[in-house]
């Protein structure tokens, strides 16, 4: 019998993007969207029942698009009936997405699924409830051979080697997770989650443009893409123009101020979360936390955000030193991969033996 190859995968399931990092060198992401063909014609056009990734955005007119994660969690509430269609749809689409990610991990290897032992660590939002964590675990177990769930900001901290005297601020699309690290496993008291994140910025930006440019015709997706390419709250940034259709004809609009206002909208909650965690920390070590705030996640790429948070911390906390991770998009998945590889073999057996 041929020995199966062990493939370690770090998985970050995000509201907007799901990212994987594997120890065979594969690192990639998919938009967290699943598309179901609307009718027989679109099913024939796609040649399959499910569509993923950029294809969903490109052909969304012929697909029913479903987003399995909301505010960083599986779209199931604590009191949702497990037999309801909404529950089934959420589980099914999350499973399909994770299966697609696993396929991407082994695609380049060239072998079949049975040639591999897929071992994964999946990052869950800091304050995901037990029901949500269980649901993610069940989905992951059906796709991977060995699975463990960890808190997402903890995975980022582990990947960076910042296991003590550090504050991780993971700015995603659905949530901003803030976690303080002090040499032990973070508990609920060590973590704060705010829901004013990337999606909130998109909404604020959209509403500001709607108010100012009443003739223009646009969607939230359009302004989201524009924001991702141009987000800047620095005072020295360039003037930013967006082209929006007005009665079918593209017209250029100056949106510099609106974009700044929208991007800045998430800062007060982030700083309040940081302040809360520092204030409730041992006073002897508060300074260490203040000088080791690390930004991660897609939202950390907003130009000028680092300085803005530092200025707020100076004003409200007397001091603040903020750094940004090198690879904001992959920080969570990289940390999860490192956990996966560091986990001793006997621990994997211990976990899988208890199923």
């Amino acid at each position, binding site marked *: 019998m041929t020995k199966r190859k062990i493939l370690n995968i770090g998985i970050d399931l995000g509201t907007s993007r799901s990212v994987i990092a594997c*120890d065979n060198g594969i690192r990639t992401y998919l938009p967290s969207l699943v598309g179901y063909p609307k009718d027989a014609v679109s099913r024939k056009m796609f040649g399959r029942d499910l569509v993923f990734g950029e294809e969903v955005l490109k052909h969304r007119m012929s697909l029913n698009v479903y987003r399995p994660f909301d505010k960083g969690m599986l779209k199931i509430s604590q009191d949702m009936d497990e037999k309801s269609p909404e529950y089934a749809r959420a589980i099914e689409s999350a499973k399909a997405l994770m299966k697609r990610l696993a396929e991407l991990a082994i695609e380049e290897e060239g072998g079949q699924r049975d040639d591999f032992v897929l071992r994964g660590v999946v990052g869950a939002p800091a304050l995901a409830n037990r029901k949500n964590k269980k649901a993610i675990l069940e989905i992951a177990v059906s796709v991977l051979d060995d699975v463990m769930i960890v808190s997402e900001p903890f995975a980022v901290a582990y990947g960076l080697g910042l296991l003590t005297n550090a504050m991780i601020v993971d700015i995603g699309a659905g949530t901003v997770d803030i976690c303080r690290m002090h040499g032990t*496993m973070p508990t609920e008291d060590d973590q704060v989650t705010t829901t004013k994140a990337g999606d909130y910025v998109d909404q604020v930006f959209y509403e500001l443009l709607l108010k100012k440019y009443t003739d223009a015709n646009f969607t939230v997706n359009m302004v989201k893409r524009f924001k991702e390419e141009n987000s800047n709250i620095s005072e020295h940034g360039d003037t930013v123009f967006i082209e929006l259709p007005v009665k079918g004809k593209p017209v250029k609009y100056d949106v510099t101020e609106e974009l700044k206002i929208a991007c800045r909208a998430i800062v007060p909650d982030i700083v309040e979360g940081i302040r809360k965690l520092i204030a409730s920390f041992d006073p002897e070590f508060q300074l260490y936390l203040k000088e080791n705030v690390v930004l991660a996640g897609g939202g950390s790429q907003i130009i000028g955000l680092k300085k803005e948070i530092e200025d707020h911390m100076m004003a409200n906390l007397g001091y603040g030193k903020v750094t940004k991770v090198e690879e904001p998009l992959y920080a969570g998945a990289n940390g999860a991969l490192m956990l996966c590889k560091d986990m001793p073999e006997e621990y994997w057996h211990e976990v899988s033996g208890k199923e």
Partner: protein
Amino acid sequence: MEDKTRRCPGKSTLALGDTFEYSIASIEYSGLVIYSFIKRGSEVFFQPMVKVTAPAWYKTGNFAGNMAGGIYRKAHESLKKSLGSVKGLKRLFTGKEERLMAIEQKLTAMDTRLGYLERHGVMATKEGLRVKGKKLTDEKMMFLKTIVSENIDLRVEE
């Protein structure tokens, strides 16, 4: 008191002066005559010579030019045959340079990939790829053990 009296030159002085001037004129004239003789004489002598020999020189020059041209053309053709045209030479070396660059790029990519694998504990040895034995700190082991307990609880929980 200034001596305002002019001394008048004598007749003999005048005669001498005239004689001198006449002598100069004579010399000049004879020089011109001699020059004229030489010029005409050389014309008489050299012109026919040139007429006679120029065609020969012309033909010789042409002949030499043709010979040299012929030799050059022959050499050029044989060089072209053995080494190709100058453009072909250039293509030969440029093509080799491009192939070398492509190989260099592949080697750099392989180096980067090996570096990535080594960073994640995989060493390339003569026998093949080998996973480096990793020693985890007690702190990290504690974290990992906690993760395992939490995951077991999650599975066991109803």
